[in-house]
């Protein structure tokens, strides 16, 4: 059998497709739309994952939270000293942070406290903020928070309502660089003293504790030691967080993959059904080709080219549209699946990552399956006797 690429058969296949242009166009549009939908979803997921994974290494290895009555509770700061005494622990810090619900706009701000006197914080904040002017009653805002406050006419300061009902005025300082928007959009950074005042957290208490471990092989051991020491604590390692990320994205894109597979198979069943009951005209065409001297493998080759051309064109078009939709148009509508129902949305500028794996997955889900759906019925007609087919 000659397996050489046959230009004449290709030309025949192209002309055959153009003869049935409405059917071809219909299949092209549907298949492109399916490829477009799934690949946009994968591109979004992949970019978010990339974003998370590129920053996950900067996080502390272990987070310790106190659980009381099934909920997270304040943890005593003295725990820090005990954790620091464990061998292998590089550093441990009591974090003070929480959510502040701003009723006027219906959004939650994330308030994060830092030690105002520590030099390293000043340095790192200097490099990620546009302008640093850090005093005790000044806060640094994410872009989203700044926008929301401005809308509510808080341009110079913001009045936080403390648990006992009085106000705490904090002045608006610098804002974070646009580069960090996906991370910093809803964040307000200020001194721990202010945060304690706003949330009514005692000096001896903290939200949770984060610990750094120098040797990655020791993380699990140290985590279990902490767990033994504090049975009421929830100890979360960096790996747990990674698994958790993976779960949520697998879940979200899995739902869509399931929907996609259902629609894809429905589509192929329609195609197969239409093609297996080849119209008498198409059957006659195959018969005539055979009578002219075409062999079965020529007929199949021609059908293969037809299927390949349509599905490959749809595939490329779908990918082009998906890239444009996700990275240039910033995925309108579809981004809501990922960003939830928040009022404080980010501008959703995802970093571009060329997702070869997903592209290959979509290719193998669409192109070969479509080709199979066109070849199989043609094979059945092509193996019949010529006179039987023509008649």
């Amino acid at each position, binding site marked *: 059998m000659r397996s050489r690429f046959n230009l004449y058969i290709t*030309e025949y296949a*192209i002309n055959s497709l*153009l003869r049935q242009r409405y059917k071809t166009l219909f299949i092209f549009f549907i298949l492109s739309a399916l490829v477009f939908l799934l690949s946009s979803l994968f591109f979004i997921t992949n970019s*978010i994952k*990339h*974003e998370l994974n*590129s*920053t996950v*290494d*900067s*996080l*502390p290895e272990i987070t310790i*939270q106190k659980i009381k009555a099934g909920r*997270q509770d304040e943890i005593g700061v003295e725990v820090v000293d005990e954790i620091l005494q464990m061998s292998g622990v590089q550093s441990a*810090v009591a974090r003070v*942070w929480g959510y502040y619900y701003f009723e006027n706009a219906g*959004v*939650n701000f*994330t308030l*994060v406290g*830092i030690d105002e006197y520590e030099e390293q*914080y000043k340095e*790192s904040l200097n*490099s*990620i903020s546009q302008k640093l002017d850090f005093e005790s009653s000044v806060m640094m805002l994410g872009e*989203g928070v700044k926008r929301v406050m401005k809308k509510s006419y808080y341009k110079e300061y913001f009045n936080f309502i403390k648990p006992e009902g009085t106000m705490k005025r904090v002045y608006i300082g610098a804002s974070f660089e646009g*580069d*960090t928007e*996906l*991370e910093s959009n*809803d964040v307000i950074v200020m001194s721990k003293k202010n945060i304690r005042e706003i949330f009514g957290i005692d000096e001896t208490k903290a939200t949770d504790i*984060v610990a750094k471990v120098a040797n990655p092989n020791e993380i699990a051991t140290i985590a279990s030691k902490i767990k033994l020491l504090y049975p009421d604590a929830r100890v979360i390692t960096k790996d747990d*967080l990674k*698994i*958790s990320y993976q*779960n*949520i994205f697998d*879940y979200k894109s899995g739902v869509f993959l399931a929907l996609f597979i259902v629609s894809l198979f429905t589509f192929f069943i329609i195609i197969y059904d239409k093609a297996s009951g080849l119209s008498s005209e198409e059957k006659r065409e195959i018969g005539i080709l055979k009578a002219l001297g075409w062999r079965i493998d020529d007929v199949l080759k021609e059908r293969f080219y037809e299927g390949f*051309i349509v599905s490959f064109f749809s595939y490329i*078009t779908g*990918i082009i549209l998906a*890239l*444009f939709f996700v*990275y*240039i148009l910033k995925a309108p509508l579809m981004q809501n699946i*990922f*960003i*939830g*129902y*928040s*009022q*404080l*949305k*980010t501008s*959703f*500028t*995802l*970093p*571009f990552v*060329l997702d070869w794996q997903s592209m290959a997955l979509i290719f193998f889900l669409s192109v070969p399956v479509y080709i199979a759906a066109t070849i199989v019925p043609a094979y059945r007609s092509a193996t019949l006797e010529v006179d039987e087919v023509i008649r």
Partner: protein
Amino acid sequence: MNRKSRLFIYSFFVLSAILSVEIWYLFWAKSMDEEALRSKREFVKTVQLPDLSISTEASYIRHRSLSDFFSAYRDDGTLREYFVSTYTYRSAPYLGDKQ
């Protein structure tokens, strides 16, 4: 080869060219550069919060450290709380195993 097939073949090359140009452009304009990556890492290191602020109304989504292993299914951002169904869940079989 007739004109239509030639056009068809050309359109294939045009599509491939558009795809390559698009990928090149996105690579050049939209991918994360070193500077952005540095400031992102610096930010995460400073505030020590794990997640992206892509959903703020559901605390367990914004900060995964607040959630447990089931919350990907229970507390998804697109899932509204409805009693009974979201209230009860069965824990994974490996939890509570005798070690």
